[in-house]
């Protein structure tokens, strides 16, 4: 049976003014948070508008998801869903490449 990563939530459609702190504060009413992080653009370091919130307990995560999905935050409607399994993340597939002279 596949292990589901249900302590982690994927939060999207956040405002550009959101910070890691404000994200944590937004979800802390639902339980103890292990980690709250925004995904930032690698070059500009600006938040991309989505991030991950990891709870200590699955129950807290489920409660938070039910309560916050579709809620208006800072004037914007946000989505909250269970983060996909790490293994299910699409990995970049290397194009069929060949270096060196073919030996087979």
């Amino acid at each position: 049976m596949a292990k589901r990563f249900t302590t982690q939530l994927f939060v999207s459609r956040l405002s550009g003014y959101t910070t890691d702190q404000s994200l944590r504060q937004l979800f802390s009413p639902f339980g103890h948070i292990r980690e709250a992080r925004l995904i930032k653009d690698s070059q500009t370091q600006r938040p991309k508008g989505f991030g991950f919130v990891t709870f200590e307990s699955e129950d807290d995560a489920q409660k938070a998801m039910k309560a916050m999905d579709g809620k208006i935050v800072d004037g914007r409607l946000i989505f909250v869903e269970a983060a996909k399994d790490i293994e299910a993340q699409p990995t970049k597939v290397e194009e069929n490449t060949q270096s060196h002279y073919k030996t087979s």
Partner: protein
Amino acid sequence: MGGEEENEFYLRYYVGHKGKFGHEFLEFEFRPDGKLRYANNSNYKNDTMIRKEVFLTPALLKECKRIVSESEIMKEDDFKWPEPDRVGRQELEIVMGNEHISFATSKIGSLVDVQSSDDPEGLRIFYYLVQDLKCLVFSLISLHFKIKPI
């Protein structure tokens, strides 16, 4: 029996080109002491040279000599063969007993290139010999360097 020089065997084959990814080439060399040296180089995606060396048994050297002598390549001449060009270059150098050949020509894409050349017969012999030698060398190298031995 005559001196050792009569039994000397040396063979070197090179195919390569210079381009966007550096000097990409494949070369192998059968040395008289039985060492087979292999190199495959490319800077494609910042890759580096692959070098491998193995020692061959007398039985194998004998087989290689047989392949060469049956091809009758030692009777050929590269005089009419296409010159090496921007696309690439092939070199074949063989010493067998008291015979010595040293050929240089362009890359051969297929038998069409052989047929349309000024010496189809000779170039065909070269083309098939190179295929046979590559087959032998790649088999030897891959058998010797298995990551997980059988």
